[in-house]
């Protein structure tokens, strides 16, 4: 099967499930179902070819790493929120902000997006820009611990990079 066809089928299934969960749970109606199929088809025709770009084999370990990643992300989000709450409630605002550069080995668009999103949701950091060719991320850090690129990479990106690499590459 061609890659584009696969991508279109995946988009159709995802959009149909989203539509189904929003409208159909608890009551069942043929009209809604037909409208859902039509809308999913339109979505598939317009944006179907951009979801999957490269072919990969199915691996069971990827599912385990995805579950691990979700729990890791939840834990980091909770830590991030407590950190921000501490900073905001502290009377002297103990911040030391700045923009640092970190390195990354990830090459694909999807994995870079996930890494940037994870960095934004974790304590004290906000991704500003990505340079894909050099493999560099610019990160705004609210409480800088190190300006050095290697140490910053270790502290900011090291938490997620391995898991994301296993999931997406």
């Amino acid at each position, binding site marked *: 099967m061609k890659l584009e066809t696969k991508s279109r089928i995946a988009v159709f299934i995802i959009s149909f499930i989203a539509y189904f969960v*929003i409208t159909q*749970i*608890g009551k069942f109606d043929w009209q809604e179902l037909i409208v859902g199929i039509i809308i999913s088809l339109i979505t598939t025709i317009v944006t179907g070819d951009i979801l999957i770009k490269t072919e990969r084999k199915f691996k069971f370990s990827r599912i385990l790493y995805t579950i691990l990643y979700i729990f890791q992300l939840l834990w980091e989000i909770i830590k991030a929120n407590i950190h921000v709450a501490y900073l905001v409630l502290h009377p002297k605002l103990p911040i030391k*902000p700045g923009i640092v550069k970190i390195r990354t080995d990830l090459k694909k668009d999807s994995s870079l997006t996930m890494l940037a999103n994870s960095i*934004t949701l974790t304590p*004290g950091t906000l991704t500003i*820009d990505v340079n894909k060719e050099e493999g560099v991320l610019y990160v705004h850090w609210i409480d800088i611990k190190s300006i050095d690129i290697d140490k910053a990479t270790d502290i900011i990106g090291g938490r997620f990079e391995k898991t994301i690499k296993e999931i997406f590459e």
Partner: protein
Amino acid sequence: MSEIIGYILICIGLAFDFFGVLGLVRLPDVYNRLQAATKCVTFGTAGILAGVFVMEGYSSMGLKPIICIIFILLTAPVSAHAIARAAHRAKIKLTDKTIVDKYEEDKELY
């Protein structure tokens, strides 16, 4: 029982939304404010939605919050990143407390 858990989740969400808004007022510049706004408001809103899900159960109203949580977690960081990048390109200054700005040094990149 599920109602009590739902109310607790909604209260936690509201508290973190409040911290996010407080950060928006207290922190010094665009970038720091975005940090507070993105993190706390994402988590707070997700908390409120999770509370609604726990109270409603697997019904038509209870599953919509789950979809909303997924979309918020995926899109909030992207919008924060877009705003921060646009602010930096529009030459909005960082606060005086700033230690280092590596993005400014590599400016010939864009």
